[in-house]
């Protein structure tokens, strides 16, 4: 990931405007994929949420929409991670990358702050904090936690998807990466930005979240 992508984005733009989705409406990422430019990803069941990238100290940086998707509806669990964010040019959501979940680990980083950790098999890692209305935030985060349990259970790694107990050996290396990332971070987050992403009820039911 080396472009204006998730770990080092420094993105501007306020993101897509518009009212919060009503329940059952596809999330922003899904709508983006449905917009006609990404035929090969159009029919994937997706479970997505809006996040902000945070530093290890919890400072807020750019917006990220993260989703997990199944490349076939027959799959019992998602197999792809999708990352998107506002484009530099016009702030519209733009897909940054698609990563096979077998090469990515997701952890709950700080449950009290609704934070996840995303770690690539190449060692690169970053932290995301859920951005959702306070009434639904716990429920939405809970769905991610359940998903993480299922993904971890399914893989050969430890069955408990929490970073706090497990992250000791890798901390040094990450410290360095974070510093680098923080240089490029711009605080452009608007406090009261409406949250548009909704969980795709179909995908979440499909995967028992």
């Amino acid at each position, binding site marked *: *990931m*080396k*472009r*204006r*992508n998730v770990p080092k984005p420094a993105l501007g733009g306020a993101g897509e405007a518009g009212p919060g989705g009503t329940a059952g409406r596809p999330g922003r990422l899904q709508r983006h994929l449905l917009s*006609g*430019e990404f*035929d*090969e990803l159009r029919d994937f069941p997706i479970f997505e949420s809006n996040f902000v990238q945070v530093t290890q100290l919890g400072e807020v940086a750019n917006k990220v929409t993260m989703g997990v998707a199944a*490349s076939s509806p027959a799959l019992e669990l998602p197999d*792809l*991670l999708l990352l998107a964010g506002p484009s530099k*040019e*016009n702030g519209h959501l*733009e*897909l*940054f*990358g*698609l*990563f*096979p979940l077998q*090469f*990515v680990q997701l952890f709950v980083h700080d449950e009290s702050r609704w934070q996840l950790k995303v770690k*690539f*098999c*190449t060692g*690169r890692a970053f932290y995301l904090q859920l951005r959702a209305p306070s009434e639904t935030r716990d429920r939405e985060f809970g769905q991610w936690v359940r998903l993480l349990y299922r993904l971890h259970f399914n893989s050969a790694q430890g069955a408990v998807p929490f970073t706090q107990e497990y992250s000791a050996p890798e901390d040094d290396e990450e410290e360095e990466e974070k510093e680098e990332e923080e240089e490029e971070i711009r605080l452009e987050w608007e406090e009261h930005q409406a949250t548009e992403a909704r969980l795709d009820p179909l995908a979440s039911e499909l995967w028992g979240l």
Partner: protein
Amino acid sequence: MTYAYLFKYIIIGDTGVGKSCLLLQFTDKRFQPVHDLTIGVEFGARMVNIDGKQIKLQIWDTAGQESFRSITRSYYRGAAGALLVYDITRRETFNHLTSWLEDARQHSSSNMVIMLIGNKSDLESRRDVKREEGEAFAREHGLIFMETSAKTACNVEEAFINTAKEIYRKIQQGLFDVHNEANGIKIGPQQSISTPVGSSTSQRNSRDIGSNSGCC
């Protein structure tokens, strides 16, 4: 931003040849000295102007490392253009071209325009593959050929834009059916009927370039 056409590109080739750097140079005009292994597909997009038409390039930068290859291969489908990249300082990356080419031909449309790229032309002193060898390979397999440097930006614009020109030429010759999405071409959302050539709607990036001139 409206556009007349959208072309899907893929960038393929061995790990470390500079695929992500080529994309970064093309979209952001930056060079990244550190190798961040790509582990799936990363996306980039940019508008170019060909013959007075705005064309959006949607670029799929794929992972070159062997362990990711079986997965990324499934996304070759529906590409109108491919940049097949090797590193002029590492002969093995040149030797692997045949297998990349087979893969690409097998998983995408037969009309796909393929641009062969010998990257890292700034490292002349470490050159391991002669320019003539690249040219010969391209001739033999019906590819376009250029040497580029993602570091100095030499020929990077040209590589992406000449590929688009060739696709556009094929569209005009009727070789590409633009309504068949398997060809990796889409018609823009609100295609304006005609944009005058050299129109001022072109962006910083929309310049027309003569063929193969340049710095390498």
